[in-house]
């Protein structure tokens, strides 16, 4: 019983249906490619009318919504969605980091807000978090092979044995798992862990020690060696 449940969870984690409402083709395609590669279903809409039609007919696990669209505002789409009591998760992506827009968006019922430009890995992590929160069974665990992450207790188990991670290592693991199979740049990792307001440079060598420690702890607990450095650009969490 437990095994079936686990597998259900896993399939739910891996296949996600999202809608990208974004008028900038370059960005739209990048997002679609990034999400579609891991077997997710990713649809796109480039303008207001199409987007409105899609959200009225289909349901998505998460909608990525740009606020400034040709012939309409993303906030109106959000309002339409909420007026019809659709349960879709909404992540606003906007060039405006204006607090007003963010607050308005969140007031209208958006689940999260991401300011352009962003890292695709960050976007994915946010989307996955929304999907998890929205899932009907209140998905509180992420399971990746032998690694189980308890989101409520912020606890990580390998083969059922708990390992002790620092706050940053925990966040790092979560980030890696959400982006498994993808190369994540050092910048993206640094910004995810410390926010993007700070000017800490040194080529982000300082994240190396975090990754080294996390990797060591996982391997010592008997897990596979999933984290690998990729051509000096970043790190990848192998999914096979």
């Amino acid at each position, binding site marked *: 019983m437990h095994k079936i449940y686990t597998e259900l969870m896993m399939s739910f984690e891996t296949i996600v249906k999202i809608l990208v409402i974004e008028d900038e083709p370059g960005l739209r395609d990048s997002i679609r490619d990034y999400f579609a590669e891991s077997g997710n279903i990713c649809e796109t809409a480039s303008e207001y009318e199409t987007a409105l039609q899609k959200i009225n007919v289909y349901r998505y696990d998460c909608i990525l919504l740009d606020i400034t669209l040709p012939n309409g505002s993303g906030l109106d789409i959000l309002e339409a969605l909420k007026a019809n009591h659709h349960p879709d998760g909404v992540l606003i992506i906007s*060039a405006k980091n204006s607090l007003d827009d963010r607050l308005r968006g969140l007031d209208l019922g958006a689940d999260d807000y991401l*300011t352009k*430009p962003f890292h695709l890995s960050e976007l994915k992590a946010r989307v996955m978090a929304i999907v998890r929160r929205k899932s009907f069974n209140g998905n509180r665990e992420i399971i990746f092979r032998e690694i189980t992450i308890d989101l409520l207790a912020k606890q990580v188990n390998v083969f059922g044995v708990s390992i002790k991670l620092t706050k940053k290592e925990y966040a790092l693991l979560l980030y890696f798992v959400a982006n498994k199979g*993808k190369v994540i*740049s050092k910048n993206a990792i640094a910004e995810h862990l410390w*926010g993007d*307001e700070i000017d800490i*440079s040194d080529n982000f060598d300082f994240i190396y020690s*975090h990754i080294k420690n996390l990797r060591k702890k996982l391997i010592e607990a008997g897990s596979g060696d999933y984290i690998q450095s990729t051509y000096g650009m970043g790190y990848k969490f192998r999914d096979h």
Partner: protein
Amino acid sequence: MKLLDRYNSLSLLTTILVIVVTGVIYYFSISYILTGQVDKDLEVEENEIFEYVKLNHALPQVFKSDDLIIHFTPIGGHGVTRRFSDCRFFDAHERDEESGRTLTSSVMVGQQLYRIEITESKVETEDLIRMIFFITLGIVFVLLTVLLLINRLVMRRLWQPFYRILKAIKLFNLADRNGIDPVNSHIDEFRDLNLEVTAMSQRVLQDYRSLKAFVENAAHELMTPLAVINSKLDTLMQVGEMNDKQGLLISEVYHTVGKLKKLNRSMLMLSRIENKLIAEREEIDLCQFIQDMVNEFQELLADRGIVISEGLKPCRIKINRDLLMIILNNLMGNAIQHNCKQGKIVIQLDQQGFSFCNTGAPVPLNEKQILQRFYKSPESEGSGLGLTLIKEICDSYGFSFRYAFRNNMHCFDISGI
């Protein structure tokens, strides 16, 4: 020197000069007139003597009088020239010398020629002149004082609109987005000045706004292409089969795009703060907030062997959370980045403010220079806007933000919270 004082001193000087000159003229004309009066009296006396001699063929009896002395002196030969002259007059009653006026003339009595000297005291005339002089002086003095006082009061009142306009100009701040309020005045000059100043402030504000809007729009517009570049780089990284050289190149481009992004965000943030677009505040336990932030940086500090010591007293503050975050993250980021290996960071907090001190270069920084936009030390990788952002935020909340070099440490103090 104030216009009023300048005007007063000029008018006072002129008035005094005019009064002195007219006073002299006044004195001489009055004394001329009064001397003429005395001379007339003397002539009357002379005539009386002539009448008497004509009638009686003898010199009249001279009675001693306090203010009139008549002397007859027999002279031989021909007569004396009739003339008026000033002389000294001995007042027997007062027993002192006074000034007097003498008419010297001559009269024939029988065969004998007599010289007549009629002398009259001028003391009363002089008393009169003195009296007139003092009264006039008094009037002039009172008039002058009253005029000065009125000038002072009236002028001050009249200049009121000017001072109000001046104050408004002094308080005028582009970032406040308020123009200069019109000041009512019935004086044409002030009304014109006020009109022009108000119009000018509106024009300046308008220009400033459109400039700001341009900067903000430009920064916004840049965000989308940046997002595309960023996402394409993310996608490019997913392509396998790459060598380390290519990887390094991508990494460098990525890093640079990251810097561009931060620069852009800082610029947007700056213009938002300057435009006072960030209004909402909440009460924050600053002590807790700083501790949380220090914890966030713990690993980073440990990595560089930096020792941090805190002296935090409880303090609550009403501020925007995001802006406080920018201040603290920037201060902390700087303190770490510009520190030396095995360095120190000291954070102090009390009711008045807080300070971040760090070890680093052994020479003080130039306070003016470091607060300049886009200034950065040669080894810095930052945007050069970090301290500017802090300064702007502090200004917008009325805090003071200062740099000091104390005990070989670079200190950034924020006070007045």
